[in-house]
């Protein structure tokens, strides 16, 4: 049903005025052009996100202008800004409450790794310690164009997701988790400091 159509056949048919598609293409086409982000900003990067949503950069051109105030209606979480350790459990909980399929963009140095505040006592060293991130945008802050680029990257990622088979999309696989453990406030740090299921920092080889 979702077998890929032969590209040559498809173009040939299109030339004759017949438009064919597969279920998978139709499904992904619909999803990638209506990504609704969750409306929240954490620090200075959020200003750039707001600029991206406003008329000058206009994320509406890509179908992402509907910022939802509720996680139940959102597909995309743009982690725009510094995640403090006090905020991290709330972010993870919001991610858990989003309906599948859901995607995460880590925007800016802070969301990726803690950025300029990495050595701070209350700064989480990257949101990818607790939730899986799909697109990382470097920069401090990234320009709105960079966010748009990340958005397009995400669209092409969605476009390439499979509907069936062994490599089907994560949200279609009943074995893949949709919720991730929420860290708790410990005596000296968040507990646990990272989720090993999603976060494996590179090891040093000598």
């Amino acid at each position, binding site marked *: 049903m979702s077998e890929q159509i032969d590209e040559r056949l498809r173009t040939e048919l299109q030339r004759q005025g017949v438009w064919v598609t597969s279920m998978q293409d139709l499904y992904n086409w619909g999803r990638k052009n209506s990504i609704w982000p969750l409306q929240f900003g954490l620090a200075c990067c959020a200003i750039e996100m707001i600029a991206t949503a406003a008329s000058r950069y206009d994320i509406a051109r890509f179908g992402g202008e509907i910022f939802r105030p509720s996680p139940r209606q959102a597909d995309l979480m743009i982690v725009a800004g510094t995640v403090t350790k006090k905020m991290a459990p709330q972010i993870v909980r919001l991610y858990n409450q989003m309906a599948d399929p859901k995607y995460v963009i880590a925007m800016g140095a802070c969301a990726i790794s803690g950025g300029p505040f990495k050595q701070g006592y209350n700064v989480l060293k990257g949101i990818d310690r607790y939730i899986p991130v799909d697109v990382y945008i470097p920069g401090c802050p990234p320009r709105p164009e960079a966010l748009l680029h990340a958005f397009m990257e995400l669209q092409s990622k969605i476009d390439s997701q499979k509907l069936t088979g062994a490599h089907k999309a994560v949200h279609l696989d009943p074995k893949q988790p949709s919720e991730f453990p929420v860290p708790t406030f410990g005596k000296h740090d968040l507990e646990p400091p990272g989720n090993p299921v999603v976060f494996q*920092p590179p090891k*040093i080889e000598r």
Partner: protein
Amino acid sequence: MMESLEEIKARIQAAAPGVKIDIVANGSPSQQHSLLIDNEHAVGIAKFLRVDPALRLDFCSNATGVDWLDRTVKKTVKVKKLVDGEEKEVNETIEGKIPGYLEAVYHLYSITHKHGPVIIRMRTADRTDGARLPSLTPIWRSAEFQEREIFDLYGVRFDGHPDLRRILMWDEFQDYPMRKDYREPDDYEWEPTPHDEVLEKAKQHYPPRPAEEELKPS
């Protein structure tokens, strides 16, 4: 023009005899000297500063903490000593230990007279159990959150504060992160270009180098 700190000190001591006030000089270009007031009479002194018609320091713009670790100070003193049966003056260095303490510093302004700042500071007895100070929130309401912040980050307990809880960190947190001897939990992760403190931390996580023989080409 506002009175000098010496005049303020003299007037406070005239109004309330027995109050201990020191002037802490600031050698930096800002020349912002401060009054070190004693904890017992702090609330009374604060009230005086606020209601005194000439001063009327009705606005506490900033309250902050300072951490002073235990210090050893070297002093050279001239001591008379018997050297070879003769009495001579000899320079000798003695090491003095100053036990650590915490400070709370308040910057006061007057909206009425448009002058300021007058800086007052209070010192705790030590950095552990004796880290207590009287709260000045009853005098300046704006100190409430800032005293909570000092409590949160330095661990100074303010007696008489209406609502002393942590304000930035979570309630379960037990350390005081702005103290100079605070060590953050070691959550080092691999970095391509570690430097300074991060390099020090990174070195502890590097696997041991393989022995020299193994590296030699055979």
